[in-house]
């Protein structure tokens, strides 16, 4: 009895305390943060021009928050690893059915165009909207089209794993060279003059890193799609 009342008292006081806390935080937020957020964005956009990259979003994602992008890629790698462990790719046995004739021919015609578009989005990530993540997923969707239309097609495992390893290692390697040359991880050690802004070769290491990210994302997403599509149907 006494114990029960004690608990309810504690609950009410807990509610009151948390309400007070939330109100205080809201008060601080309303009074201070909007101006600070505005100032932070203005500062980033002002500093952006120093790197000579036309697309400010790319500068933020790859350069100012380059370490976070490395973490995101690690997360994607772990997701691909988990899917590969759970649903390892085993081709279905005899019951392969031929897909539609039009789908077969059209996908063979569309596949090079989709790959070209993906590589374009990847390489021009520092000049126009897009970048490594988007280009990689576009390439993976081209691979997906080929997997759906042609039942005998399989992603070459050795090539994919070599590309993925190369991309991951070179990301860290570029970062370490920046650490040695400029004394900060992922420092922009290549020439990035502002007069070259808008050219294909501009921005120093930023397009290099985005291409590396695109290779890694494309190979990982291709493997994920293949593992999901080609799994055996029995449990």
């Amino acid at each position, binding site marked *: 009895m006494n114990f029960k009342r004690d608990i309810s008292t504690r609950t009410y006081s807990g509610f009151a305390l948390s309400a007070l806390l939330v109100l205080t935080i809201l008060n601080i937020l309303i009074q201070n943060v909007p101006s600070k957020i505005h100032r932070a964005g203005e500062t980033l956009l002002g500093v952006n021009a120093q790197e000579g990259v036309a697309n400010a979003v790319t500068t933020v994602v790859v350069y100012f928050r380059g370490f976070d992008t490395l973490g995101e890629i690690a997360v994607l790698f772990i997701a691909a690893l988990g899917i590969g462990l759970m649903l390892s790719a085993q081709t279905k046995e005899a019951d392969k059915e031929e897909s539609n004739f039009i789908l077969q021919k059209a996908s063979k015609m569309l596949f090079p165009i989709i790959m070209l578009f993906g590589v374009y989005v990847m390489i021009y990530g520092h000049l126009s909207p897009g*970048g490594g993540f988007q280009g990689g*997923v576009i390439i993976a*969707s081209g691979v997906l089209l080929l997997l759906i239309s042609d039942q005998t097609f399989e992603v070459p495992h050795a090539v994919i794993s070599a590309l993925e390893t190369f991309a991951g290692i070179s990301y860290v390697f570029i970062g370490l060279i920046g650490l040695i040359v400029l004394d900060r991880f992922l420092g922009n050690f290549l020439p990035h003059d502002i007069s070259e802004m808008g050219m294909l070769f501009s921005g120093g290491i930023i397009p290099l890193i985005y291409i590396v990210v695109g290779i890694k994302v494309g190979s990982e997403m291709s493997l994920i799609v293949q593992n999901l599509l080609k799994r055996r*149907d029995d449990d």
Partner: protein
Amino acid sequence: MTGLIILMAFIAIIVVAFATVLQKSLPDAVILFMGVGLGSVVLFFVFQAPDVALTEAVIGAGISAIIFLMAIKHFKEV
């Protein structure tokens, strides 16, 4: 003009989202879900975020719907 596009995209997203929830068959619901992604692509593009629009078009309307369809096929609902 821009306001009209924004309004139409908002209305389309809401209508398609309701249709997605109320749909009985799962593959039809996935296709309507891709429609929600398409509406948000238009919205992101009008609000001057083409990077996010490209990501949403590729991942939200493309790959995620394919993964949903594969899961439905696995549970023998097609």
